[in-house]
């Protein structure tokens, strides 16, 4: 079991990443809290030893993505309107448009857009993180980009 200082460091370092991935998937605050607690509990008790911070961050990204998907599959969730979510997240008005556009994409597109554009992962890295074929990642990225353009300009 990892000690307090180690888990607190991880929370300070990866809380925003976990929150952003939750934001991509979850439509209410309670689910985000649940995921938060589960992810860091898993980190405290069962996570492997990491070679470096990149490896550690990739673990958080992968585990958060899977936890969110599992949570959505597990039961009917109480969804709140997207606009309320954006308000709840304290997103400045000038950023709500692009965020709304991303969140309106299909799940696969949302993932690759976030992982590629925000986290800076390459298609190959995304394919490993999400266990998806690399060419599929390229396709998803291309389609997501096209849909975003359409939404933002349309």
């Amino acid at each position: 079991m990892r000690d307090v200082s180690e888990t607190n460091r991880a929370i300070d370092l990866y809380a925003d990443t976990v929150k952003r991935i939750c934001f991509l998937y979850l439509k209410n605050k309670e689910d985000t809290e649940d995921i938060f607690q589960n992810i860091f509990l898993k980190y405290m008790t069962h996570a492997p030893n990491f070679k470096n911070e990149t490896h550690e961050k990739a673990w958080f990204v992968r585990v958060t993505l899977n936890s969110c998907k599992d949570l959505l599959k597990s039961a009917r969730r109480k969804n709140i309107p997207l606009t309320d979510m954006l308000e709840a997240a304290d997103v400045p008005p000038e950023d709500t448009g692009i965020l709304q556009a991303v969140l309106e994409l299909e799940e696969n597109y949302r993932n690759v857009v976030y992982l590629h554009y925000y986290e800076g992962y390459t298609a190959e890295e995304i394919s490993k993180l999400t266990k998806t074929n690399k060419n599929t990642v390229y396709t998803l990225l291309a389609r997501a980009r096209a849909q975003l353009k359409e939404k933002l300009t349309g």
Partner: protein
Amino acid sequence: MKEKIISAFDAVTADEALKEKTKEYLAAKRRRAPKRRPLLSWKNAVAFAACLLMVTVGATGVKAYYTETAYLSIDINPSIELGINRFGVVISQTAYNEDAQAVLDGLNVRNKRYAKAVELLLESGALDDYLSEGAAVDFSVISDDAAAVFVALQETLSGAPYAFIYTECTMQTKNEAHAYGMSFGKYALYQELYSYDNSITVEDCRDMSVGEIMRTLNAHKKSGESQNNGGSQNENTGTQQNGTLEDNGNQNGNGNNDNNGHNGNKKK
């Protein structure tokens, strides 16, 4: 578009309340978590170490028990060799002629202290046929402390009505004796006899009883004759002969009584 996405997601952050709540949640979980037991508690570790020590000591002890550190050859006509461990306990018994085999077939002296083993052998009745008048019993010893063995045997056998000869031997004598299929006690007597009469052979000696050998030896000593040029005695053996032999009319020609009352011609 990339910059816009980055800027927009930058705005999504985990607020401090969420972080604190998570930290509190983990702290509560940590308090409730059962403390992981070490693979070995100190008590178990001590017990484990003690067991290991016992096994090691036990294995060493077993090895020591079954390692021969001294040998006793008992020869009358039957020739018996006993292997003795460092604790003075007999761990092997070997017959070197048919008479001895017949005795050992009905008698097991293993795991007995050597003095007790000798006592059992002599008192079993199995040797009675060979302990008639004029008989002599030779005790040959290979040991770091042969003197102690002799003393122990003398104490055990005091008052017995037959002659005892005590001989200290070497491993070389034992190895040579075994090459001839003979006990090292009888072989040592043969060597001594050969030093007076070099026409005598191992085969001649093999069928002679200890009493016969001793009488022949005494005859040589008495007459002062030596058929061996120079008459030198064998350097590998030395014998102490019990006065009982004299009592039985088989007088030892040496005639020098040592402090134990034995005629001594023991050579070192």
